[in-house]
């Protein structure tokens, strides 16, 4: 990077070189030089000054004047930045929205800036998770110490990893940031924080040699998230405290801090959903709430906008995974969260055949199991299955989502189906939402799924699905190694590889059988899958079918589901790679054309999807029509839809509303 050169181009590129500090304990001789800062401000004068100041601090600076550009930069370079500084008032996107997105998707420290020093604004920064708030005009002294936020966060992560973090540690660690948040940047020294940091440092070091290594962030996989969601549901969202959640989850290596930060994100997500559900204009809004933009980003799964509650899910997921809470970025969260959505394992069918497949996915499904979703076990199973089929949709998410579910459901519901569908189709919204929230919340997917399914909100289901898809994508990408066709649905269209391997699979299988509720969601999912990522879609479809309507479907849709699944899977298979695609595909009605990476998805997100499905199912079972429509539209498989519709007895009209594009269930021999 050209520190002195006045270059304004982003200089991310130095993967490890200049940020050598990152690798060790975060402190090397060079540190904090080379800190990679992204600064966002629509005011060109301020931007230029900030850039120069940061350069003078020997940081690697990238500047941009639009929040959306910033988000895409962040998404493209997942680990390309260490800290983000953003203005509060920007024309294209509210700085706080950006803050949330970044927090959820990328988990980077974000510093807010403004000429406005009113208490309310500063408080807003705090509540949205800013790690600091600078008042303009910013002085270079204030910028010199921003590295502390990065180190602090890293330390927390390390602690999380170490698991040595007893509650005290965690608390202690948690504290500083909070303190920091409250203290304005004026406290350049932030002595408290430094002190704490120092203490933590010492502890960390004593505790574990490895603490010197840069520990990776805790990746909230689908399973993990589902477990988290389950735990939260069990405790009740109000009573869910990190310590208890941690105990319930009983995951080795997970620290209270991990849980705490994840919980925070999850709460934000929930808040957003509930606030948003009112006005879901096409998922986007609802899920993301105000941040349509964010949605966009979240749904980046593959362009799918999973606006769905995905927003919240996405956010969650994003947070968990890496943030793609924004709409467009569902893929992002999904990818990371791949695990979240265990739709990966598209359970092709209702059951038997899929079972196996599901088993693959079962991993994911398992997650579901663990999660005390609202749905009955069967449903869960179905969900799982579906989830699996979906490629790892995070059904689990759903489970978590009992709350989310309702939220999601609500979200889905309020929104006109068409909207939802439209949304889904058009905007990946679901994806985004799915991706994000699903992952993190696990609920999201569940909710989504549920919504879609059971509730009228077919669309919702769709959403979840899409999200799930997206999630799936993510999860898939994550690495669930979906071989590529994790959709068990449909038997094998390559779906088999749907990843939900882990847990979902099992769960899904069981769930799908019985969950009627899923049907709708299944439809949605399937449709989603179909539409989007070809594979994905089918996966979903398969999932949906499987999970929820196993029974139902059998009669009428037997074929469909499988078909759909196949579709989804096939597409998935095709891509094999695009996990994210899966997610996206499914959801991105049209946007992404089914990357077909379904396989990827299947790997993970199934659980989420399943969850969603399950959740949705639980909620409103008869809403199959929702997804019917969705599917119908998307897939173009009217029959499938109609099957669903009939089953649901719902609105066939939904079909038209949802325009999932992208995926055509043409193949479905419904």
């Amino acid at each position, binding site marked *: 990077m050209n520190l002195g050169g006045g270059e304004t181009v982003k200089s991310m590129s130095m993967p490890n070189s200049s940020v050598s500090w990152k690798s060790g304990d975060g402190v090397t001789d060079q540190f904090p030089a080379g800190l990679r800062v992204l600064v966002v401000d629509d*005011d060109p*004068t301020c931007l230029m*000054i900030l850039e120069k100041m940061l350069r*003078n601090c020997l940081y690697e600076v990238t500047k941009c004047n639009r929040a959306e550009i910033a988000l895409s930069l962040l998404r493209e370079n997942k680990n390309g930045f260490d800290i983000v500084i953003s*203005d509060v*008032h920007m024309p294209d996107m509210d700085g706080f929205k950006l803050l949330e997105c970044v927090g959820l998707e990328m988990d980077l420290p974000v510093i807010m800036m403004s000429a*406005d020093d009113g208490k309310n604004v500063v408080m807003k920064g705090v509540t949205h998770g800013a790690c600091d708030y600078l008042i303009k005009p910013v002085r*270079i002294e204030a910028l010199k110490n921003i590295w502390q936020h990065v180190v602090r966060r890293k330390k927390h992560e390390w602690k999380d990893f170490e698991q040595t973090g007893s509650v005290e540690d965690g608390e202690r660690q948690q504290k500083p940031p909070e303190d920091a948040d409250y203290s304005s940047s004026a406290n350049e020294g932030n002595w408290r924080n430094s002190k704490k940091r120092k203490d933590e440092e010492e502890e960390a070091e004593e505790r574990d040699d490895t603490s010197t290594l840069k520990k990776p962030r805790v990746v909230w996989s689908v399973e993990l998230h589902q477990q988290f969601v389950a735990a939260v549901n069990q405790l009740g969202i109000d009573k869910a405290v990190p310590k208890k959640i941690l105990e319930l989850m009983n995951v080795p290596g997970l620290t209270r801090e991990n849980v705490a930060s994840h919980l925070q994100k999850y709460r934000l997500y929930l808040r957003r959903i509930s606030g948003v559900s009112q006005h879901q204009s096409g998922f986007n809004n609802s899920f993301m709430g105000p941040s349509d933009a964010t949605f966009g980003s979240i749904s980046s799964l593959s362009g799918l906008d999973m606006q769905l509650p995905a927003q919240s899910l996405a956010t969650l997921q994003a947070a968990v995974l890496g943030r793609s809470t924004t709409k467009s970025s569902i893929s992002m969260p999904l990818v990371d969260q791949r695990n979240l959505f265990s739709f990966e394992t598209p359970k092709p069918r209702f059951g038997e055949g899929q079972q196996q497949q599901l088993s693959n996915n079962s991993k994911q499904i398992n997650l579901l199991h663990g999660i005390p979703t609202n749905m009955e076990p069967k449903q869960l199973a179905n969900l799982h299955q579906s989830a699996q089929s979906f490629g790892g949709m995070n059904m689990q998410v759903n489970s978590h989502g009992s709350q989310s579910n309702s939220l999601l459901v609500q979200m889905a519901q309020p929104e006109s189906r068409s909207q939802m569908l439209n949304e889904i189709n058009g905007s990946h919204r679901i994806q985004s939402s799915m991706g994000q929230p699903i992952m993190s919340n696990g609920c999201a997917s569940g909710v989504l799924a549920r919504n879609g399914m059971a509730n009228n909100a077919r669309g919702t289901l769709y959403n979840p699905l899409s999200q799930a898809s997206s999630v799936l994508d993510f999860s898939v990408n994550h690495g669930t190694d979906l071989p590529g066709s994790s959709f068990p649905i449909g038997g094998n269209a390559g779906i088999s590889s749907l990843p939900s391997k882990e847990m979902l699979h099992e769960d899904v299988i069981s769930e799908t059988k019985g969950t009627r509720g899923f049907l709708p969601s299944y439809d949605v999912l399937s449709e989603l899958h179909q539409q989007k990522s070809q594979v994905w879609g089918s996966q979903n479809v398969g999932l949906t079918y499987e999970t929820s309507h196993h029974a139902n479907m059998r009669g009428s849709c037997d074929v469909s589901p499988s078909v759909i699944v196949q579709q989804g899977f096939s597409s998935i298979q095709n891509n094999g790679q695009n996990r994210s695609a899966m997610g996206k595909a499914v959801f991105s009605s049209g946007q992404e054309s089914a990357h077909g990476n379904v396989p990827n998805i299947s790997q993970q997100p199934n659980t989420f999807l399943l969850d969603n499905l399950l959740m949705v199912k639980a909620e409103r079972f008869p809403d199959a029509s929702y997804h019917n429509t969705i599917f119908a539209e998307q897939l173009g498989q009217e029959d499938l839809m109609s099957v669903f519709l009939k089953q649901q007895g719902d609105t066939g009209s939904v079909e038209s509303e949802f325009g999932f594009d992208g995926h055509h269930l043409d193949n479905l021999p419904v």
Partner: protein
Amino acid sequence: MEVGQLQERFVDYTKSLFCEGFLDDQFLQLQQLQDESNPDFVVEVVSLFFEDSEKLLNDLTKTLDQQFVDYKRVDAQVHQLKGSSSSIGAQRVKNACIGFRNFCEEQNIEGCLRCLHQVKQEYSLVKNKLQTLFRLEQQIVAAGGAIPMVE
């Protein structure tokens, strides 16, 4: 004029700008940022400020000229102007913006128009002053001298 004199003039002029409140400490920050790798940093930033501000002021004029004034928009624009002027240290412009925002809140069109006028005036003044300052700098450099740092 010889270098020494130019430099003296420069120092005096700079000091006066601070005394009269046209510039504040933030401007010094800018000057401190300037270095060999960015020898024209201050001029560049200030030019950017001029460009941006003129746009903003034009926008503001238009917005306030509407039959139904969008005060939110006005407020946002004034806020931005406040931010950029404070970033370069144009203190009087910034202060004028603060008053302006109050009238925006009250949705007081008269007050807003007065403030707009005031902001424009302050802006013109500081623009002139800074341009004079830069000219002096150029003269010093042209005469082979170094720009003195002003405390």
